[in-house]
């Protein structure tokens, strides 16, 4: 019972933290992209436009919430809920300090991959329930993309599992605090696996350059075409949550999570390391978003199947070879 309650409290805390970070990030991203394009961005609402995200929420709340008459009302309402909840749920196993973790599951990596992939179903659900051609096309492309990038995601997440011999995220971070970051050592399966994981995670979260499911210039707004009001907002929360939680998981798996100088003696420092690493990866995704253009669907699949899949299979085997040949890994 106490475990259930602990998980529940952590759930509420983490969700609120993610919501707040998303709000700040929406402001930051608008300012940042404006600077990149020689504009000034939001300036009117609050100092430096800081209250802009809250104004956006108020605007979305006041919008009429329509459901297409020819669509499926139940699935249409359930889709944004499912997308957000599943994107957030992956955070349950992320260790923030040596002691602060909502649920230290033995199969943490599996949990992350399992709940993370349900968001794909939510997006297809939205596309199908809208009964709109743009939405359905977006949903279908999204399935093809997410399903393809799931494979390198799973395989590159296996590299830390092979090296540390555990599937618990805290176990993997503890292993890294005793050895080195997996992205740094052993360099050969570590660094490329991190890069592949990061790419695949960006693709799973449908962020540019992998935002085929939305593709404003060709599909109006993709799966979110028919959405308005709070349901639309939930999709966006879900996307930000997926990116943020994905960054946290990438930093736990490959960048040592809470480990760093003096983290063992001062647990709060571990939290600082974890947050800094996560926000850095999150910022990288924002940066990429405003620097690159979108891949075409066929290029997207070619990159995945012809390059990322065989490379990540090879990396898993190299990691196993490393464990076999180098003494003292475990």
């Amino acid at each position, binding site marked *: 019972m106490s475990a259930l309650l602990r998980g529940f409290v952590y*759930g509420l805390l983490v969700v609120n933290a993610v919501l707040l970070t998303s709000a700040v990030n929406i402001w930051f991203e608008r300012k940042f992209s404006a600077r990149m394009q020689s504009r000034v961005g939001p300036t009117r609402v609050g100092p430096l436009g800081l209250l802009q995200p809250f104004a956006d929420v108020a605007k979305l709340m006041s919008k*009429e919430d329509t459901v297409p008459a020819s669509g499926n009302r139940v699935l249409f309402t359930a889709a944004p809920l499912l997308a957000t909840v599943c994107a957030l749920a992956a955070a349950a196993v992320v260790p923030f300090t040596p002691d602060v973790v909502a*649920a230290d599951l033995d199969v943490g990596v599996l949990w992350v991959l399992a709940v993370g992939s349900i968001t794909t179903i939510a997006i297809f659900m939205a596309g199908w329930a809208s009964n709109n051609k743009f939405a359905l096309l977006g949903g279908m492309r999204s399935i093809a993309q997410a399903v393809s990038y799931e*494979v390198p995601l799973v395989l590159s997440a296996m590299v830390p599992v092979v090296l540390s011999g555990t599937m618990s995220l805290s176990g993997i971070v503890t292993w890294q605090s005793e050895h080195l970051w997996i992205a740094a050592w052993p360099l050969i399966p570590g660094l490329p696996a991190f890069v592949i994981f990061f790419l695949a995670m960006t693709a799973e979260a449908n962020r540019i350059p992998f935002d085929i499911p939305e593709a404003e210039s060709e599909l109006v707004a993709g799966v979110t075409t028919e959405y308005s009001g*709070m349901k639309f907002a939930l999709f966006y929360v879900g996307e930000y949550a997926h990116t943020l939680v994905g960054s946290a998981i990438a930093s736990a798996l490959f960048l040592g999570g809470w480990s760093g100088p003096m983290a063992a003696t001062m647990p709060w420092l571990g939290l600082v390391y974890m947050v800094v690493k996560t926000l850095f990866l999150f910022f990288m995704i924002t940066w990429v978003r405003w620097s690159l253009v979108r891949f075409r669907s066929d290029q997207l699949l070619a990159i995945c199947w012809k390059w990322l899949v065989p490379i990540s299979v090879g990396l898993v085997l190299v990691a196993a070879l490393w464990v076999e040949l180098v003494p003292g890994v475990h």
Partner: protein
Amino acid sequence: MTESYAALGFLLGAFLMAGGMLAGAALLRVRATKKSPLKDTTYECGEEPVGAAWMQFHARYYLVALVFVLFDVEAVFLFPWAIEVHELGRAGLIAIVSFVAVLMLGWAYGVRKDALRWE
């Protein structure tokens, strides 16, 4: 075992927050005073929608799904081995390399046949 309950609690907390947002917005929303059948039609660039969107889709999506199942099942088999790499030692490594080699043969066949190329 207790940790699974914690994960369940986390799921409940996340669900409650997201559901609360939806329910709160549904309660607080500004209701439209005018109803019109046009509002409930789907968007098709301002034209009247032609037929339903629920129709046949291209077979290439099916191919991608098929290859995905192949590799995902491979990953399911690899995970139990991955956490026991050290204990299984050289014999385990040889077994897994031959297993993956058979699978990658299938992958090479698919690539040569252009099964994964979209034009």
